[in-house]
């Protein structure tokens, strides 16, 4: 049976390739009984979402949206 170290590696890899049926099954089975890894799995999705959003507002978004010092549009 897969441990958390192996499970998290697979969850990371699932962001980059399609897991095999066996890998998926083993992972599901592990995650049923492991809250930490279940959270980790969701966090992988969140990281991707964050990076997408971050790409759209490079650095922090403190300068760009502020328009008060500009003439009216």
């Amino acid at each position, binding site marked *: 049976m897969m441990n*958390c170290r192996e499970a998290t590696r697979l969850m990371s890899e699932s962001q980059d390739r399609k897991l095999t049926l066996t890998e998926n099954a083993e992972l599901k089975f592990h995650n049923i009984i492991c809250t930490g890894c279940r959270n980790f799995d969701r966090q992988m999705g969140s990281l991707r979402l964050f990076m997408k959003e971050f790409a759209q507002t490079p650095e922090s978004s403190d300068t760009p949206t502020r328009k008060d010092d500009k003439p009216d549009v």
Partner: protein
Amino acid sequence: MNEATAIDLTDEAFLRELREQMLKFARLQLNDEQLAEDAVQEALIGALKNARSFARQAALKTWVFAILKNKIADVLRGKYRRNEVSDDDECNKSGNLDDELFNDGGHWNADERPVNWGAPQKMVYDEQFWKVMDACLNHLPANQARAFMMREFIELTTDEICESMEVTVSNLNVMLYRARLRLRECLENRWFAKT
């Protein structure tokens, strides 16, 4: 679009800051001052030609960074092929964070077990969050950061990154894994555990 709505390209402070941010990004990705300067210069010139179509600085910034990312991807594809970059197997030495996170049986140490982050979609509107994100990305070991950002930010494929960095797929997988472990750990400690 008339004169009044276009971006003011004489806004030196904005341009200077934009250039600094681009340089910082390009340096991290290219690991070479000269190449970074060149990429930024080209991207800026290319992007500012169209600057008049943008009414908002935010939109221009997004556009400029999109062009910069393309330039960087081009440079990386060419550069590593010519093997100008010394290949370090940093992925094998630095950052064995996983040894601290897991016990001997490979299970989470009790105080390291990932927690529920709630609804992450809400975070994207929080400027403070992006500061933490920026800090956490900056704390990644350079190689991990490069691999991770090529993957998630420039959106190169696994094959392209492996070719660029001259690493095997399994090396890359390890680098990406460690980057993600580290990044989520950092975000959890510095943001999610506090909110």
